[in-house]
C-alpha cells in the first residue's frame, strides 16, 4: 500500500480505524478525511476486500458429540490437565509451574544426577592418593640411638617395647596382665617378681678390668601416662627392683594443669635395658634419648697420674724417714708430700666417680599425666540453651549452604557436561521417535 509521504493518515491508522481501535478524536478526524480522500478510500477498500477474502477460509461445524462430552464432564466434575493463562508460562511455552510439581520430571532429574555422581565419584574414590598421614610411631631405638658396635651392651628391641610404643597412652600388658597391677599385687601378696640378680658387694665401686672400653651411659624418657598415680609410684619401685636408686625427684601438681614428675635415677648398667623396658610400659613414650660417652682414656690417664703420684708419695715418705737434710728441706718435703696426697685423694675420688658413672647409668624420666581438663560448667539456663541452639542452627545452616556451594562449584561443571552429553541426544532421539510415531 504505497502512500503519499505527506498524507495526514498512514495506512496503519486507517486499518486501526476500520478495526475500531483508533483513538476517538483521531477516528473522527479520519472519518471526516475519508469523505474527500480517494487515496484513503482505496486503502479502506483494500482492507475490506482482504477481510472478505479471508472469510472464504471456512471450516465445518463441530459434531454434536462434543457437546455431550463437555456437558457430561460438567456434570461429573471431570478435570483437565490443561493449564490456563493464569499459570506461569513464558513465551517459549515452558510451563514452569507444571514442571515444578511434575513428579516424573523430578524423578528423571534425580536419576540423572545420581548417574552423573556415580560416573564422576567412583573413579575419584579409586584414585590413589598420596599418603599424607603423619607417622607418629616412635622410631625404633636401634635407629634412633645407634649403638657403639661391639662396645655397648645393646638394649634389646623386644616385642614388649614395640607394643608399648604403638599404644597411645595405654599401659602395655605383660603376659596378659597389667604391669601396674602385677607389681602392686605382687607386693601385697609377697610374691614379687624375681628381682634382678644383686650385684656382688663392692662391685659397683670396682673398676672394670680388662672388660673393654669404659662407657658412661645416659638415657632419658618422656612418658605420657594415663594412670599417673600408678606410674609415678611404680618408678621408684622399678628403680629399686633393678638395683638402682632415685638420685633426684621433682613432682608438680598445679591446679588446672596436668601433673608432672621428673626423676633422675641411677641404674646399674647391667640392669639398664630391663629397667628401660619396664619404664616404657608405664605409658606412651613420647621421647626417648640415649647417649654413651667413652671415658676409657680419661680413666687410664687418671690411673696413670694416680700411679705416678703414689710413686712420688712413696719417695717423699722414704725421704722424710731418713731426715738427713736441712730443716728447710724437710719442711719443703713435708709440704710436697701433703700436696701429693691431696692430689692422690682427688684423683682417687675422680676415679671412683668415674667408675660409679660407668657402673651406674643415669636415667632421666619425665612422667606427664594425660590430662583432660574438665569444663567446670554448672547447670545451663534455658535461655542459654535456646541461644546456643539458635547459634548452632545458624552455624549448621551456614555449613550446609557452604557445602552446597562447594558441591555446586566442585561438581557443577561436570554435571552440566554430563547432562549435555547424556540428555540432549536422548531428548532429540525421543522427539524424532514421537514425530515418526505420529506419522
Amino acid at each position: 500500500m504505497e502512500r503519499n509521504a505527506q498524507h495526514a493518515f498512514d495506512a496503519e491508522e486507517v486499518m486501526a480505524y476500520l478495526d475500531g481501535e483508533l483513538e476517538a478524536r483521531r477516528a473522527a478526524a479520519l472519518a471526516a478525511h475519508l469523505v474527500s480522500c480517494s487515496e484513503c478510500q482505496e486503502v479502506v477498500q483494500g482492507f475490506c476486500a482482504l477481510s472478505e477474502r479471508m472469510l472464504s477460509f471456512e471450516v465445518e461445524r463441530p459434531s454434536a458429540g462434543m457437546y455431550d462430552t463437555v456437558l457430561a464432564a460438567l456434570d461429573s466434575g471431570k478435570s483437565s490437565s490443561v493449564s490456563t493463562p493464569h499459570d506461569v508460562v513464558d513465551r517459549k511455552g515452558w510451563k514452569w509451574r507444571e514442571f515444578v510439581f511434575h513428579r516424573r520430571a523430578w524423578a528423571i532429574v534425580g536419576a540423572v544426577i545420581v548417574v552423573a555422581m556415580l560416573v564422576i565419584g567412583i573413579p575419584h574414590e579409586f584414585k590413589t592418593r598420596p599418603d599424607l598421614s603423619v607417622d607418629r610411631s616412635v622410631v625404633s631405638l636401634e635407629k634412633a640411638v645407634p649403638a657403639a658396635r661391639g662396645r655397648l651392651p645393646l638394649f634389646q628391641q623386644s616385642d614388649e617395647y614395640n607394643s608399648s610404643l604403638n599404644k597411645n597412652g595405654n599401659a602395655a600388658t605383660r603376659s596378659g596382665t597389667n604391669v601396674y597391677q602385677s607389681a602392686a599385687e605382687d607386693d601385697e601378696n609377697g610374691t614379687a617378681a624375681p628381682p634382678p640378680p644383686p650385684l656382688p658387694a663392692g662391685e659397683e665401686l670396682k673398676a672394670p678390668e680388662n672388660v673393654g672400653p669404659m662407657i658412661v651411659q645416659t638415657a632419658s624418657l618422656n612418658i605420657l601416662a594415663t594412670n599417673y598415680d600408678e606410674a609415678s609410684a611404680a618408678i621408684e619401685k622399678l628403680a629399686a627392683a633393678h638395683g638402682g636408686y632415685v638420685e633426684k625427684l621433682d613432682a608438680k601438681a598445679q591446679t588446672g594443669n596436668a601433673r608432672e614428675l621428673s626423676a633422675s635415677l641411677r641404674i646399674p648398667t647391667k640392669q639398664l635395658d630391663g629397667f628401660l623396658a619396664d619404664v616404657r610400659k608405664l605409658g606412651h613414650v613420647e621421647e626417648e634419648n640415649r647417649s654413651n660417652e667413652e671415658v676409657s682414656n680419661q680413666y687410664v690417664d687418671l690411673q696413670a697420674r694416680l700411679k705416678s703420684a703414689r710413686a712420688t708419695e712413696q719417695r717423699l715418705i722414704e725421704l722424710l724417714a731418713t731426715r738427713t737434710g736441712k730443716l728447710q728441706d724437710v719442711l719443703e718435703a713435708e709440704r710436697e708430700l701433703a700436696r701429693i696426697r691431696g692430689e692422690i685423694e682427688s684423683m682417687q675420688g675422680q676415679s671412683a666417680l668415674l667408675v660409679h658413672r660407668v657402673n651406674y647409668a643415669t636415667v632421666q624420666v619425665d612422667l606427664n599425666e594425660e590430662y583432660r581438663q574438665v569444663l567446670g560448667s554448672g547447670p545451663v539456663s534455658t535461655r542459654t540453651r535456646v541461644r546456643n541452639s539458635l547459634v548452632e542452627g545458624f552455624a549448621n545452616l551456614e555449613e550446609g549452604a557452604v557445602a552446597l556451594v562447594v558441591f555446586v562449584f566442585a561438581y557443577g561443571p561436570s554435571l552440566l557436561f554430563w547432562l549435555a552429553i547424556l540428555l540432549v541426544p536422548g531428548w532429540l532421539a525421543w522427539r524424532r521417535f514421537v514425530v515418526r510415531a505420529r506419522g
Partner: protein
Amino acid sequence: MVRHFFMNSDDQLILEFQRGERDAFVELFERYREPIYGFFRRRLDYPARAEELTQECFLAVLQNVQRYEPRASFRSYLYGIAIHLVAAERRKAGREVAENEKLDSRAAEGNAAENSDAGIWVRNALGHLELSDREILMLREYEQLSYGEIAAVLRMPVNTVRSRLFRARAALKNQLMPVK
C-alpha cells in the same frame, strides 16, 4: 426453570458459573463452541483432533473456574487456553515448518463443499506468513478479538499487535494479489 443469560456478558456468565450456576457455563459453551472449534480447525489438519482440543479447552475452564480472576476479558482467557493447546500440539508435532507445510499442501478434511478454491488460496497464503503474524491476523479476522485481547492472549504490547497486524495484512494481500 431455565434461566436465560442472553443479555449477560461473558464475564458475568463465568462469574455466575464460579458461584455454581451450571447453566451459565452451558451458555458460555454454546456461545464459544463453534468459534473455538473454528480456531482449532483452521490451525490443525484433523477435525477429530480439533474437536478433542475444543473439549480440552472447555474442560480446562471447568477445572480452573475457581481460580479464574477477571484480569482481562473472558474471551482473552478462553483463547489464551486455546493458544496454549495449539502451541503444545505444535511442540508434539515437532516442527512449526511441518505445520505450515500441512497448511499449504493438504486439503482440509470434512465437508469439501465448504472449502472453495478461494479458501484454499487463503489457507495457502496464510501459511507463508510468520507464525506470530499469522496468529495475530487470524485472531483478528476469524476470532474477532480486539487489539487489547490479542495482546493479552499473545502476551505482547498493543502497539506491537497493531504493527504486526498491519504487516501481516500487507503480506497476505501481496500473496493474494494475483487472484481476484
